[in-house]
């Protein structure tokens, strides 16, 4: 399609959509065309929702989950104060665990794994906050749901070593976690949580 002034805005939208995970130039083009045809029903509500999330979405100051307030719903709920804290690499892992609906405690999102070569240290990973929370929220068990990669395991060992005064467990081995929980079905997540072992 030729790009002239009359289509420049649409082309720009297609280009932005094509950068989304799971979309390519072709599917982005189809999606945009679809939206334009359903302007009232889909395009405008989408624009409105994007705008609102764009101004309100932020990380929970406590756990790193993404929500629209300073503190996310899970951290705000007294019911979730079970004394169990599940440590994940990414928000996607947290959401996957929530979808499975088996874990009743709270979360802590690290935002990555330790990697000296990539200059990611404990300070970059909300690990100091994790240590504070364990004391402040009377945590009795920290469940590590980190990847089986070398960086994921280094991070697990690191945290276990820093948290000497609380029980630290890890999801059953052989379960691909760490940004990958997202791809697991609920049953697998449930099984991995049940079969957690002490570190």
């Amino acid at each position, binding site marked *: 399609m030729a790009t002239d002034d009359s289509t420049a805005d649409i082309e720009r939208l297609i280009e932005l959509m094509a950068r989304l995970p799971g979309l390519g130039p072709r599917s982005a083009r189809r999606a945009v065309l679809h939206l334009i045809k359903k302007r009232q029903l889909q395009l405008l509500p989408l624009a409105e929702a994007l705008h609102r999330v764009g101004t309100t979405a932020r990380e929970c100051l406590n756990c790193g989950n993404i929500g629209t307030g300073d503190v996310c719903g899970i951290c705000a709920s007294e019911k979730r104060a079970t004394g169990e804290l599940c440590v994940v690499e990414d928000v996607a892992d947290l959401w996957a665990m929530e979808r499975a609906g088996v874990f009743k405690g709270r979360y802590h999102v690290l935002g990555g794994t*330790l*990697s*000296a*070569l990539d200059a990611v*240290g*404990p300070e970059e990973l909300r690990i100091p906050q994790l240590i504070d929370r364990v004391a402040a929220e009377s945590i009795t068990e920290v469940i590590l749901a980190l990847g089986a990669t*070398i*960086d994921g*395991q*280094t*991070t*697990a*060992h*690191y945290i276990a*070593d*820093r948290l000497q005064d609380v029980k630290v467990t890890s999801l059953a081995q052989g379960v691909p976690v760490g940004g990958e929980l997202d791809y697991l079905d609920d049953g697998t997540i449930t099984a991995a949580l049940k079969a957690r072992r002490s570190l």
Partner: protein
Amino acid sequence: MSGLFLSRLTLSHFRSHKRAVVESDARPVAIYGPNGAGKTNLLEAVSLLTPGRGLRRAAAEDFVRRPESLGWKVTANLHSLGHIHEVETFAEAGGARQVRIDDKAATQIALGQIGRVLWLVPAMDRLWIEGADGRRRFLDRAALSFEPRHAESSVTYEKAMRERNRLLKDMVRDPHWYGALEQQMAEAGAQVLANRRLAVEMLMSAQTEAATAFPMADLSLSHPDTELPDTEDGLRDALADNRRSDLAAGRTLIGPHRTDLDAVFRAKGVAARDCSTGEQKALLISLILANARALEQMIGMPPILLLDEVAAHLDEGRRATLYDEICALGAQAWMTGTGAELFAELGDRAQYLEVTDDAGTSSVTMKEAP
């Protein structure tokens, strides 16, 4: 009957080969042709049917045929204990090496599970006199042939060590971070050491039991400056104890990455490095044959052997003996030499390929026994 061999090998846009197709049976493959024809390139292609960077230790982008630089591909029908696997390894232009086994994407480590390939190349002639790296690699190839998971343990150890080295270089002092990495290095490192000890044991007993004309080498493992503990706990403690000196050096000074393989020519009681050029070569051949015999015992099939220019360095008697031992083993040995006469003693116990160069493109032709 041989349990491990290639029945078909194709190379496309691989180094000097634009397209080469080799149909073979389980017998050894004798390859001859002038210098620069593309013989070693053919062996290198076969060496990529195992994990790693092949017999020249090259990067994926070096394999691509220049000047086209379109990406390359090697495919093979690999017979392994009565099964036939279709193995493919390739890289797109500028991409990493990929593997497919029986039409499914696979890891390089999976290659090590179905096939075993061992090689001797002229660059290894100086193995006993140069640095420990070459000997360690030789040992790790043997270890990998006995324990395919050796690749995984080695990679884990190396990766964790690179992380630790970075901490050392950056003068990071966080003991928990070192501890977490040392734990992983110790776990993987103990496995690496166990696999290497197994390899040494296997090579020693295969040499002892064999009727061979090649000399026996007494093998042992050593570590510079200090005795290396071989248990996981021992390694972890040793690494922790060594942090101070490692910080000063800016890298990890102890560990399996510094192990050396020592060899003594038993009949003379002389260290391999002090042996004559011919004796040093004979020791290597002896170890490769021992490795092959040990594998035959262990998994029921000898490995595929790649022997680049071995014939050239042996006198006629030794050459005949080598061929006899290879044929007795039933190994599909891919051997190169500049002239067909180097393989005369093999007769029709082998199949023959002539490789020639045509203005920068290799061509491969099947030949009758000379």
